[in-house]
């Protein structure tokens, strides 16, 4: 709610007026968003799979003292048919608002890209072709005759490599020259004639014949070296024997690195914060601040804030860049490809796997990502089940509890076992997603299964350092800001609830005692329930609220280490059952407020939003009841 997925880079300027408007159109996965980022300096999230951009992004840049507004339209294969985004793109171009339309094409895949290029040319004259990924051409020994291409299409052609930041300066210059009318463009008759044919199938045939002709004229050699290598890799990653195990291994590795690294970073951060708190304490006493105010600021606000930063931020800051690297390589579509049959049996399709993958980062992003799913009913199912995947805000809570539960003598064994447990938990979430999707598609969303097409883009060498730096900067910054925006006030509120007493009992105690009966049935207690209720704002605050409630917000010295966490929990009656039920509830409860708002916005339906809150919570409650009953009989 403070940093929605739309405004990832809160530092960009916004302009009220502009001199020109340009729009970017192109096939999915051609690097259009990268070009957009380079032009505008915005940090739209890019990744190596089709459908990453799901809404028009708007940015601005200045060139030669003129302000240019850039609109990034979602990727589309054609201007012809009826997906919401593609109609939007088509309308945008037709209404002529743009002073210049930039078609971004994949230079390594020119023949297919020409399909869209020709279609755009048939509608508008204000077009420039931006041939992106030009660096991959050189690698593959493909030679494109740019002048011939420009002649054949009648428009200027600029070569770029957004990944390497090449050609952007020339692009801006050409855009300006174009808008000023300094560049000659002309209509090519043979292209016009292609579109005289009105029959859809014949026209498509004609278009591709023309694409093929142009391609043969302009592209000289064709080497398939990378292709055979990609094919070899794909055969392994999608094989019956290794496909799924490799997937699990990747995820396991991701988790293990996250847990291992986060351990150390958390320690350092908490030591640092402790030191700072001592300084603050002295400072406040020096200026003779009221002791209640000091307690409010330090025990309430500062402690909660720093707990979230020290414990929640490191796992997120490590997981997200690693995940981005995997995304960049292009592995995600293979996951969708592998799992599609499973999803088909549940009445949905493999693209749901992609939205689930996004849900790992943030469930709100996962919900927005559901736009890549073409049918409404499958989209709804994906939105309803997205919350089963624990997001970055919840993974640290799970990691914390698992770390406490698993203690052997070796750090490596500990972290490895924790990673395995986390993987198992995630697999259970995935299983539940399958089951619930199946139930939904049999009951509320009954229909024939739909068609499914997934594009498997070529593997790319990830820019590791750049991914890490960007993801850490972007992610770390947004988590930091979110912590300040959400954790600090939550800490303040809890402190008040703990310290405002009515008849000698704190407000918080009234609350937790009220929820104790419900909590006990579920194998938990009133404090945990209260924490989850307050955690509606943001999942990161659940454990801090629990800690503050148990300790009545008193100053703790070793506040944020796992051993301290363990002792506080055991002192307050936590058993193995409590830990298990807690983890169940972490996974299976209503989405956070940001996600709920997102679901409402994406689906436009209050009913769907309501169900999306009830469904996981109901499952969580049932599972907790079950575990509690079982444990009562075993012990």
């Amino acid at each position, binding site marked *: 709610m403070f940093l929605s997925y739309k405004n990832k880079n809160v530092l960009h300027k916004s302009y009220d007026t502009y001199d020109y408007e340009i729009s970017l159109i192109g096939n999915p996965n051609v690097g259009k968003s990268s070009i957009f980022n380079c032009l505008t300096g915005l940090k739209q999230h890019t990744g190596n799979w089709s459908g990453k951009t799901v809404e028009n992004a708007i940015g601005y840049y200045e060139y030669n003292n003129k302000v240019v507004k850039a609109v990034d339209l979602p990727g589309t*294969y*054609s201007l*012809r*048919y*009826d*997906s919401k985004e593609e109609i939007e793109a088509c309308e945008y171009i037709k209404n002529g608002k743009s002073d210049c339309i930039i078609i971004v094409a994949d230079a*390594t*895949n*020119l*023949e*297919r890209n020409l*399909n*869209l290029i020709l279609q755009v040319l048939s509608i508008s004259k204000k077009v420039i072709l931006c041939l992106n990924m030009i660096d991959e051409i050189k690698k593959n020994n493909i030679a494109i005759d740019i002048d011939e291409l420009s002649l054949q299409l009648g428009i200027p052609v600029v070569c770029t490599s957004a990944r390497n930041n090449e050609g952007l300066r020339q692009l801006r210059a050409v855009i300006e020259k174009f808008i000023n009318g300094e560049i000659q463009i002309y209509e090519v008759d043979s292209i016009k004639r292609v579109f005289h044919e009105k029959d*859809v*199938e014949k026209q*498509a*045939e004609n278009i*591709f014949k023309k694409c093929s002709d142009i391609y043969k004229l302009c592209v000289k050699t064709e080497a398939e070296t990378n292709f055979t290598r990609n*094919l070899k890799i*794909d*055969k392994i990653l*999608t*094989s*019956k024997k290794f*496909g*799924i195990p490799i997937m699990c291994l990747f995820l396991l590795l991701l988790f293990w690195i996250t847990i291992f690294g986060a351990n150390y970073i958390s320690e350092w951060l908490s030591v640092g914060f402790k030191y700072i708190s001592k300084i603050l304490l002295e400072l406040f006493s020096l200026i003779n601040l009221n002791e209640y105010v000091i307690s409010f600021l330090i025990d309430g606000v500062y402690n909660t804030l720093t707990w979230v930063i020290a414990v929640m931020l490191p796992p997120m800051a490590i997981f997200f860049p690693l995940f981005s690297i995997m995304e960049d390589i292009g592995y995600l*579509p293979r996951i*969708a*490809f*592998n*799992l*599609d*049959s*499973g999803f*088909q049996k549940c009445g949905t399709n*493999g693209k749901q796997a992609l939205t689930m993958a996004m849900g790992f980062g943030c469930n709100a992003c996962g919900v927005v990502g559901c736009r890549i799913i*073409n049918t409404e009913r499958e989209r709804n199912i994906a939105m309803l089940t997205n919350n089963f995947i624990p997001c970055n805000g919840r993974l640290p809570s799970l990691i914390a509890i698992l770390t406490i539960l698993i203690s052997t003598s070796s750090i490596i064994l500990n972290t490895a076992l924790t990673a395995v447990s986390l993987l198992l938990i995630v697999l259970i979430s995935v299983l539940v997603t399958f089951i619930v999707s199946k139930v939904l598609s049999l009951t509320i969303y009954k229909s024939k*299964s*739909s*068609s*499914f*097409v*997934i*594009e*498997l*883009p*070529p593997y790319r060498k990830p820019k590791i350092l750049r991914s890490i730096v960007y993801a850490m900067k972007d992610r770390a910054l947004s988590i930091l800001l979110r912590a300040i925006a959400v954790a600090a006030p939550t800490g303040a509120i809890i402190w008040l609830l703990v310290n405002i007493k009515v008849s000698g009992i704190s407000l918080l105690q009234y609350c937790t005692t009220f929820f104790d009966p419900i909590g006990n049935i579920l194998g938990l207690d009133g404090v945990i329930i209260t924490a989850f209720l307050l955690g509606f704002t943001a999942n990161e605050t659940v454990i801090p609220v629990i800690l503050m409630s148990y300790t009545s917000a008193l100053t703790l010295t070793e506040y944020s280490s796992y051993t301290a966490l363990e002792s506080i929990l055991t002192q307050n009656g936590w058993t193995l059952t409590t830990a298990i039920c807690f983890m169940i509830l972490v996974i299976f409860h209503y989405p956070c407020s940001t996600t709920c708002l997102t679901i409402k916005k994406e689906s436009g339906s209050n009913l769907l939003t309501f169900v999306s809150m009830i469904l996981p919570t109901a499952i969580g409650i049932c599972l907790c009841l079950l575990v509690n009953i079982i444990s009562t009989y075993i012990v």
Partner: protein
Amino acid sequence: MNDKEITLDKLKIGELSKISHIDIDSKKMYNRLLDLGFVKGSTIRALFKCAIGNTVAYLIKGTVVGLRSTDTKRIYVDIV
């Protein structure tokens, strides 16, 4: 119907063929296939199958696309 015409789902892995015609009900899917290059005469090759189930990856017009057998049953190709 000529001797060498089969439905795409029967195309063996590694085999090459040319698109003959498409018989898909859904207009959306049909248009989508057209845009990916599934027009008469385009060459298509089956590359690999997925880990579980019947989805197969094909190479057409320089792109690798995954399609389900429920759809490839309705695409007719001539073996080359």
